[in-house]
């Protein structure tokens, strides 16, 4: 009984971790299905996120506006991960 639970848990974890790289270019729709991530669809790249982001100040790799732009321009998910250095 506990074994099945564990495999289920493992499967769930794997799903959460590996999915993004396999999502291809239309990953924004996948992400929007995750609870609290549905607002990804509302972004129109005003740039407030980057202006307010404490990390964006120190480097070019993780500017939220750029990431949102790449998401909406439907670049491949692997490219987005590369941008983040992942």
């Amino acid at each position, binding site marked *: 009984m506990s074994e099945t639970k564990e495999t289920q848990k493992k499967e769930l974890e794997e799903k959460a971790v590996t999915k993004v790289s396999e999502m291809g270019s239309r990953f924004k729709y996948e992400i929007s299905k995750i609870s609290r991530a549905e607002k990804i*669809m509302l972004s129109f790249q005003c740039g407030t996120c980057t202006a307010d982001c404490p990390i964006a100040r120190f480097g070019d790799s993780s500017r939220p506006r750029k990431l949102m732009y790449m998401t909406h321009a439907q670049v491949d998910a692997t490219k987005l991960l590369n941008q983040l250095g992942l």
Partner: protein
Amino acid sequence: MTKEKLKFAFYWAASCGGCEIAVLDIDEKILDVVAIADIVFWPVAMDIKYKDVEAMSDKYIDVCFFNGAIRTEEQEHMAKLLRKKSKVLVAFGSCACQGGVPGLANVSNRKEIFERAYLQSPSTNNPNSVTPQLSVKVPEGELTLPEFFDTVKTLDQTVDIDYYLPGCPPHFNLVAKAVEAIAKNELPPKGSVLAPEKSVCDECPLKKEEKKISKIYRVYEVTPEPEKCLLEQGILCMGPATRGGCEAQCISVDMPCTGCGGICPNEIEQGAAMMSALMSILGLDEEKDPAYDVEKLIAQIKDPLGTFYRYSLPASILRRRVMKK
């Protein structure tokens, strides 16, 4: 001895500045531009004053790319001045061709715009109710501002123009082709639109099947099926009423066409053409229903003016809200 270089000018009026960036979007082809032409006037990039342009002899500039609509006295003056100084004047971008987004101000007037921008907007703190004045006397002398018009005009409503290059901003292929045509002296007849004679739908890679919809969605509300016409999925796409040349870039990333390419060839009105296209597919099933309510169907369209006339209000038959004297 090398051939004498052409003289280019770029100017911006009521626009966002995106068109200036579109010029650079042609990437390495900008080197070809520099090879064939000298840029003699470009306020966004070069420090050349208006008085320098006034000092030029008439028809001194070979090609002037003018972006932006005309909404102030200064812009009108520059449009007339550049018309006088240029052999070829190109309306560059949606604003110059058809009024563009600034043209939506034609539903309002100067008084209302100033009240909103300088007095009522939530982020404004203006206790003395200061609004722009044409001239103000200060101890150092008199300060002046150009007049702000009630009506936004397109460039061709202001001066005589030679070519239209539509798009918001114009697609880099169109810009590159236009520059090539200028370099080879193969420009089409005056008054031509420097874009293909087809609609966005003709260039769109998505498949169209049976045209029938009963519900209209906004972009964030649905996950569009890949490779299926967005309009047939209920997302308002201006493709059928919009001139192509953009290779349907927006649609290929699931964003509907907003109509920046302007009026299709042989159409008079972009908004009317789109309304007619939409009404021919909207609610065909519901029509048979006894409880058919056309108002309900139409009420699904949020912001009809901003949807159908986003870039073309000043150039349309509507042109502007009637002004009460």
